[in-house]
């Protein structure tokens, strides 16, 4: 593709009107006449055999319509929850372990919160009370929740067919070259580091309404899900029904960040129950249930080794990881800690040899699945921590060490040692720009001011690179209504990213019509035949490209109609600013007139009939794009208490062409703050003895609040648009959390350098910082 379409305008969002006035329609705002409510009976144990289940008392309670038990579910022969991990093969060529996980456990429970039965009753309260009245007798088994401990020979075994709880033993890269370089390099530095277990905590908990029409055999699921099309197909196959018989759609979604991507048990059991009780069934998770049952993310432990020559040039990198996948495979199974992290290992650095080895393990915890970034933040963290550590160990300036080893522009396109093909970018320019923004000349004075207050100031810069991900294909459809409305239907799914504006902007700008005329439809299996949903920052890149394609196809058709109306030849018709003109005769016709004509077969060319302008396009990207950037920050640490304040934050992102800078800014800032959360605050903790979830509420799981967050200055580098899609765009949704986590950790360690502190595991809580200082100086 040669020319890039340009849409760089900070258009305020059309969806905001409804969100700002309380007219948004989220899952809990959707109600169906005669609906009943579901509640789930969940395991109170990390690991136990289900000995007996007695539902008689529950069944006798007021309002109870149906109880579905794990045993009944098993007897019905429904399919298990599927795993679609792209990484499936062990390093020895054997397949990975995918134990069978059913929507309701029947014989063994493997994590606290695993559903074992569902109750349907007249009200949510009745359903809850009945669920509490289901008596389950469990025989407790030993449990293991820690990723590293799970591999031990004496660790509890979750699945008889999975020795040492090892799901996937993964390897990517060049082992021989890495081993050779490590053996001979002048310097080899090694550091153990964890990526703390996180949970996405979208502010809206999950929920769904399932319905069944006995007359037609049609199921309908209104679902708080970000993956409408793919999950429709998977759920239909689990229920053993034709996918055309399942209409799956989403209302407004209150955030997802990955936690609403997976196929979950609850809606599947609800669909079955709806067919049994003959009325709609609603379920809304409460926050505690969300903490227990939403997929978690990260939870990796890695040993990172970097080999350098005598001049500080990087020779080889080895990352060896243990990743916790939870009690069984989630929808993406072992992918995140294996292939998902491997892909961008090495990041923006020219490293001739890279090896990524990883063991994905089962533990008595809820499934992990992609959470914002899904492996890419981990990969950036690994390399940025080891580079910082190497610089400190070898006494080299960390900025200079990075500068020296960045992939240079003249090396592009560049294929990394783990096979990532970087098409474009300018990593040195991006890093220099963020350094220029961050007022290095004023730094010494700020350090002194902090010190005078008894505080220690630290600084770090970390470049990052990631790849957009998600499904490669997308569909967009434009339909023209008689009242002038243009219906744009897409298979992507915005859960707050503003597609209703950004994608409509692309269509409106291309067609030269007013944005207000576009009616936006997404996340509905009736509206588009395929849809990749949300995930991997794919919305603009893939969805936007599909929209651009469909709009251009409409213009092509419009030229044909215009030629017919003007008695011209189609080759002479040009389109500009909403007007189609004959370059020879100078005659013209407005697109709106063409739209009107398209509704009337008599005014159309022979080969067209009414509705001719309505068009569907499919777009398939060739390969993912490589968003990148650099973050810099300054922190202040109170050495007396260990309290960290992130004081300043700068960031430069290369997202190629930016469609709507205001929306991209928003994505970046949200990502940075989630990255800050990982660095300083957030951690899902299971009790190592009992396997109980200790962070099951917002009283225990620390989310960033407004006063944790520094002022962020964000700039875009637009000097290197990608040619991998017609927009020149590189996905922006996950970049923030890739750079923020390591830059904050590195800045804190810079502040603590004088105390001899070289590493602290995340989250960097005040006590850990204080102990590191006192421990190091003791």
């Amino acid at each position: 593709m040669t020319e890039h379409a340009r849409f760089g305008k900070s258009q305020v969002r059309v969806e905001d009107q409804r969100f700002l006035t309380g007219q948004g329609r989220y899952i809990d705002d959707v109600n169906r006449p005669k609906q009943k409510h579901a509640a789930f009976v969940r395991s109170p144990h990390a690991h136990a055999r289900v000995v007996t289940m007695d539902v008689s008392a529950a069944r006798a309670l007021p309002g109870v319509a149906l109880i579905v038990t794990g045993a009944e579910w098993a007897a019905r022969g429904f399919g298990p929850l599927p795993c679609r991990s792209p990484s499936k093969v062990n390093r020895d060529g054997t397949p990975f372990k995918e134990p069978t996980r059913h929507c309701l456990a029947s014989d063994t429970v493997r994590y606290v919160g695993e559903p074992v039965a569902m109750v349907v009753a007249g009200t949510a309260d009745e359903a809850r009370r009945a669920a509490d009245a289901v008596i389950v007798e469990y025989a407790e088994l030993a449990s293991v929740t820690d990723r590293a401990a799970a591999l031990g020979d004496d660790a509890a075994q979750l699945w008889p067919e999975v020795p040492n709880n090892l799901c996937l033993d993964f390897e990517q890269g060049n082992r021989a070259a890495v081993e050779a370089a490590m053996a001979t390099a002048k310097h080899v530095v090694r550091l153990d580091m964890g990526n703390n277990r996180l949970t996405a905590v979208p502010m809206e908990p999950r929920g769904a309404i399932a319905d069944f029409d006995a007359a037609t055999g049609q199921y309908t699921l209104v679902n708080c899900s970000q993956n409408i099309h793919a999950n429709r197909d998977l759920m239909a196959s689990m229920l053993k029904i034709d996918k055309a018989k399942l209409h799956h759609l989403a209302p407004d979604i209150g955030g997802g960040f990955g936690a609403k991507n997976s196929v979950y048990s609850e809606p599947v059991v609800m669909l079955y129950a709806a067919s049994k009780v003959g009325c709609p069934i609603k379920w809304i998770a409460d926050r505690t249930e969300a903490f227990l049952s939403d997929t978690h993310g990260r939870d990796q432990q890695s040993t990172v080794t970097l080999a350098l020559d005598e001049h500080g040039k990087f020779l080889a990198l080895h990352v060896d990881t243990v990743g916790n996948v939870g009690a069984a495979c989630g929808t993406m199974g072992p992918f995140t800690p294996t292939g998902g992290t491997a892909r961008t290992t090495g990041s923006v650095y020219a490293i001739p040899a890279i090896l990524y080895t990883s063991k994905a393990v089962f533990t008595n915890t809820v499934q992990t699945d992609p959470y914002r970034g899904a492996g890419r933040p981990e990969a950036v963290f690994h390399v940025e921590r080891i580079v910082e550590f190497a610089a400190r160990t070898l006494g080299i300036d960390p900025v200079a060490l990075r500068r020296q080893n960045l992939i240079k522009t003249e090396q592009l396109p560049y294929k990394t040692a783990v096979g990532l093909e970087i098409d474009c970018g300018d990593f040195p320019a991006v890093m220099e720009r963020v350094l220029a923004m961050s007022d290095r000349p004023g730094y010494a004075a700020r350090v002194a001011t902090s010190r005078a207050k008894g505080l220690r100031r630290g600084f770090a810069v970390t470049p990052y690179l990631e790849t957009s991900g998600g499904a490669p294909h997308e569909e967009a459809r434009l339909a023209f209504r008689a009242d002038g409305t243009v219906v744009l239907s897409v298979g992507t799914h915005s859960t707050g990213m503003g597609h209703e504006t950004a994608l409509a902007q692309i269509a409106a700008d291309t067609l030269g019509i007013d944005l207000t005329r576009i009616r936006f439809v997404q996340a509905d299996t009736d509206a588009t035949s395929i849809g990749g949903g949300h995930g991997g920052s794919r919305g603009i890149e893939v969805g936007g490209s599909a929209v651009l394609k469909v709009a251009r196809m409409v213009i092509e058709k419009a030229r044909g109609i215009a030629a017919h109306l003007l008695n011209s030849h189609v080759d002479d018709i040009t389109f500009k600013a909403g007007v189609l003109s004959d370059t020879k005769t100078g005659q013209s016709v407005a697109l709106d007139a063409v739209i009107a004509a398209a509704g009337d077969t008599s005014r159309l060319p022979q080969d067209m009939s009414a509705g001719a302008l309505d068009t569907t396009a499919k777009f398939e990207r060739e390969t993912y794009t490589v968003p990148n950037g650099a973050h810099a920050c300054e922190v202040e640490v109170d050495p007396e208490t260990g309290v960290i304040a992130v004081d300043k934050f700068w960031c430069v992102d290369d997202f190629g062409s930016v469609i709507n800078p205001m929306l991209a800014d928003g994505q970046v800032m949200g990502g940075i703050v989630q990255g800050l959360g990982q660095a300083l605050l957030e951690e899902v903790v299971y009790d190592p003895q009992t396997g109980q979830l200790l962070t099951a509420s917002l009283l225990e799981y620390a989310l960033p609040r407004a006063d944790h967050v520094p002022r962020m200055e964000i700039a875009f580098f637009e000097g290197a648009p990608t040619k991998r899609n017609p927009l020149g765009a590189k996905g922006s949704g996950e970049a923030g959390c890739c750079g923020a986590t390591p830059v904050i950790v590195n800045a804190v360690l810079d502040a603590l350098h004088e105390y001899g502190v070289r590493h602290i595991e995340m989250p960097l809580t005040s006590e850990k910082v204080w102990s590191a200082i006192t421990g190091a100086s003791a």
Partner: protein
Amino acid sequence: MDTFTFKRAASVAEAVAAATAGVDAKFLAGGQTLLPVMKQGLAAPSDLVSLARVAAMQGIGVNGGMISIGAMMRHADVAAHGEIKALLPALSVLAGGIADPHVRNRGTIGGSLANNDPAADYPAAVLGLGATVVTDRRRIAADDFFQGMFTTALEAGELITRVEFPVPERAGYIKFPHPASRYALVGVMASKSAQGVRVAVTGAGACVFRATALEQALAKSFTPGALDGVAVGADDLTSDRAGSASYRAHLITVLAKRAVARALEVRS
């Protein structure tokens, strides 16, 4: 939530009578502790007696060296009160640092004290300032009021009506919030008055307590420097994921120094 009978009391006597009549009646003040607990099913009172309309429990009065606060005064009322800001700014700061604005608009001083959460702020004020808890039947000195985790000197059906704070010469409060809940991981109130020095610590143990070692050091010289090298024992302190006992012990001294510094900055 399990069902209960809702009663609205118009006077102290009515409230106490209603509370005594129910099998397991509870007063409802701001509900900022009681309702979350009931929502979780951890409490299921038979009757809730709303105190919202009891006039005697309202209002803030300043009389000579004494500030009298009605038990139903919301944290926001105390934080914003002009005379308290002028006479006892440490108390305004403390009240203004409880929870968040919405909780402060509902939660009351009486509810907080009756509840005696080990991580609550007001107990540090009452104990650290030597206040008196006034109930429907008696006056209870701060030193006698707090008896243990969620336990006070209150008898069944006894109603806190007011709290009286003597105005000290100097006082300062510093809170170190829990990263998630924002209750006090440790909170220290330090004050100096004609009656002596008081240092009350909340958050660190099962119940608010006076740090006598710190008080003794400060009695000699009410300055941050007087606490140099004065350690608080970690033995009886709380250890949890948010902070070990030794970290809490360390924080007590650090925060006490800062509370004293704050007390010296502003005249109480």
